[in-house]
């Protein structure tokens, strides 16, 4: 896919999203309510209408070739760059899914193991130190200092002895 195609495609998707938002806002009152002012859908409706207008303008500018992107026939993303980006995005996706399944701390350990050892090719020593150190740091900062409990899924009972220490 060239940058030129991506530009048009994105503008079309943006325009469709705008129409979708307009329809969604239209479920509420987008007109004037006597004594209460504009309905709750009015502001998002007209904003979405503006988004649609801006997207149409981008499409128009694509046709007349006004933007540098609309004239560029380079590849939108090369294969090797796509690989790098998808490894990163994929590993975050994995981290989020794993958080739901096994809780954030186990997920963090697995995520770090993958990223440090298999992507970064760091030594086992460094990998192990960070694999344990970062989750411990996150725990101390968020759970202990800032009192924000992070999702732990079924690993929650393993933290009971630490809670006893923290809150006793």
């Amino acid at each position, binding site marked *: 896919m060239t*940058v030129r195609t*991506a*530009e048009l495609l*994105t503008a079309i998707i*943006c325009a469709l999203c705008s129409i979708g*938002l307009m329809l*969604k*806002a239209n479920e*509420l009152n987008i007109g*004037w309510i006597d004594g*209460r*002012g*504009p*309905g*709750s*859908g009015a*502001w*998002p409706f007209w*904003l*979405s209408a*503006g*988004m649609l207008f*801006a*997207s149409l*303008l*981008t499409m128009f*500018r694509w046709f007349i070739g006004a*933007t*540098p*992107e609309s004239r560029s026939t380079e590849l939108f*993303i090369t294969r*090797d*760059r796509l690989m*790098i*980006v998808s490894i*990163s*995005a994929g*590993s*975050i996706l994995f*981290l*989020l899914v794993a*958080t*739901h399944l096994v809780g954030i701390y186990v997920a963090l350990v697995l*995520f*770090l193991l993958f*990223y*440090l050892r298999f992507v*970064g*090719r*760091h030594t086992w020593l460094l990998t192990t130190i*960070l694999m344990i150190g*970062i989750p411990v740091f*996150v725990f101390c900062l*968020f759970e202990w200092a*800032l*009192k*924000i*409990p*992070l*999702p732990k899924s079924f690993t929650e009972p393993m933290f009971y002895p630490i809670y006893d220490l923290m809150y006793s």
Partner: protein
Amino acid sequence: MESILTLLSAGILEALEPLNFGMILLGCTIGLLVGAMPGLGSVNGVAILLPITFLVPPTAAIIFLAAIYYGAMYGGAISSITLGIPGASTAVATVFDGRPLAQAGKADKALTAAAIASFIGGTISIVLFTLFAPPLAAFALKFGPPEEFALMVLAFATFIGLGGDDIPKTIFSILIGLVLATVGLDIISGQPRLIFGDISGFLHGVNFLVLAIGIYGIGEMLWTLETTKGEVTVHKVKMSIKAMIDNFRDVKSYIGTTTLGSTIGYFVGTLPAAGATPASLMSYGLAKTFSKDPESFGKGNISGVAAPEAANNAASTGSMLPMITLGIPGSPTTAILLGGMIIWGLRPGPLLFTEHPDFVWGLIGSLYIANFVAVVINIAFIPIFVRVLTLPFTILAPTIYILCIVGGYAPTQTMHDVWLMFLFGVVGYLLRKLNYPVAPAVLAIVLGPLAERSLRQSLLASQGDMFTFVERPISGVCIFLALVLVSYPLIKNFRARRSAKAASQS
């Protein structure tokens, strides 16, 4: 005048009492750390630590929280520069030039400039706060909803006029930010709005941090990985005493823009509707406009770091003015401070000055001390923060992802927001590849609820007459300036074409 000096010196002495001074030291250090963390800003730090301040008297408590606020304003610049992620929305503008400077190996220069500019901004604004509190409060009181809305229109117009990006794409970015801000319960009617797919997570709205961390955390990292192919790991950072002294000498080059930015930041900060974020963006825009070399902005101009940093510190002081004098918070952080004051049994408002002068002047005195303490701690720790960049990318990137995810979870504590943040990160990265500016969307989602409320209140008061924004003098001036800003690139474009035509004909 004399009475102000007497009260002020009493306040400063109060702030120097061992307990209060200890609170300033602790607050500034925590503030710096919280501010430096992507996703956690002054508002999170203040909200989370408010309950523990009940251990100390109200004066010490507010001094502690104000010191966090102050420290976080300094700290926000640290992550904006070293990581390219704003530590809080107030440091968004610092990324524009802070990031290129760090990439060029001048992170130490940018950090020193940010610290010094913050100090200048802090000092100027505290002096203004002390001297001009009563007349300014009276002026800000005149601002009704139409003026608030007009001011926000002006803030968005600066993006179109001075942003230098593709105009339809900039408009799209602003509007999508504003639309995202409307998700959730309608502030006026209480109706649920734009609840996509009936997912209950949308009921509490889209937190601006979710968009900001998504775009500037995950999106930025993906962008960096792609452009560097993950190969460039270290931005070369040279740190030495000599370089430090040289960095201090740079002050000359940005003293003018910082003074201007501080003054603007202070005034914008006092307005309840605006605050540190638009103030820093306005200050950035003005620094660019008045610069002899506007082309270098966004590519690593030191004034582009100094101007927003001076303004956001000045605005944080400014936002305390309506809180103390009128009982109206000037920012989300001061709203929490205000809530604290009510719990401590103090009634915010003009009477505070007469009923609890020790509290008010203790707070004002502590601002002078906190400003000094924050700059010292900040500069002392620069070498440590700069060292963050010497980490290999395969260590830095996962660490940042983790901070983003945990930071995105912290404000609302739902996984829904973390998923949304990830989505925004990927979409933001793709849009950025096509030259869609992302900063306006982040600004818009922050200002969105305020903009909508002031628009609807104005229209309700005027019975739907849109001319209310033009007829009132203050808002009329704002709208006029906004129109000038919006038409500026069109006129410039037209003239450029005409001169190109003339050149081709001759």
